[in-house]
């Protein structure tokens, strides 16, 4: 029986870029991080894809979900507070690509 869980491609410490795509529908990838680069903080597990669940579809295979840490200065070009500040966001694997 085929696995209903997609294999995890990333590990903590990996640099990843959030795809700069803008599909319609229910998306749990905030606009403000699309196209930006962060570092994987942890793998949270695998979960059914909410984009599909939103239309009463099974959302399988389950997608690995990661917490990705972004520097505030990366997200906001005019960031005026502490340059060490970060924003950490849970992102599904199919939104992430490797950074070479």
């Amino acid at each position, binding site marked *: 029986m085929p696995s209903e869980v997609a294999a995890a491609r990333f590990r903590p410490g990996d640099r990843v870029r959030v795809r700069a795509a803008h599909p319609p529908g229910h998306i749990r990838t*905030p606009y403000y991080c699309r196209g930006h680069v962060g570092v994987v903080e942890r793998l*949270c597990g695998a*979960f059914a894809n909410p984009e599909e669940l939103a239309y009463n579809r099974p959302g399988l295979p389950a997608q690995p979900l990661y*917490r990705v840490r972004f520097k505030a200065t990366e997200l*906001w070009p005019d960031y005026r*507070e502490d340059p060490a500040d970060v924003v950490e*966001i849970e*992102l599904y694997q199919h939104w992430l690509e490797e950074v070479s």
Partner: protein
Amino acid sequence: MNDPARPGPSDSRGYYRRMQAAVEELLILKGVVTAADVDRQVAAMASRSPERGARFVARAWVDPAFRARALADGAAAAGEIGLEVGPLRLIVVENTPDVHNVIVCTLCSCYPRMLLGIPPEWYKRRAYRSRVVRDPRAVLAEFGTEVPAGMRIRVHDSTADMRYIVLPMRPAGTAGWSAERLAGLVTRDSLIGVERLPDAV
């Protein structure tokens, strides 16, 4: 097409309240729920409050091994002390002298409700959700909270299946206090991260 914000030709006040009553009536007729189910659920939600989070934090303060387990798996640790949280995946983020944590859900209003109950109104509104990821210190200042220089901020955007609670630093001047007494110091807003707890005098 009807405008959901301006429903009905005449008295739209109470429109959604009438809708709620009608939906509940239909679902009861269809055997989907009973009125008692709804009553019980209302009571269950009302029984969940920040006091549960305060107990959780106080236990972490007095018991270092519990604290370590809470940081590794918040839901399992909560369960150990009788705080049942259902299928909630709880991540505990600890404040330190170098790091201050703040929680938000920019996409909607995700919150660890099964532990803490219903979130405050401001947490669900645009102002907080839009601004705290971009200007956290300015937003915290509106709560009367100052993050000292040299302390960096981690903002956690609760976008998916995890839920978060801040483990504040234990206030100074509390040596020897019982967990119950310590729990009395912990506020809801310190668990979200918009408040820092003052030292006990």
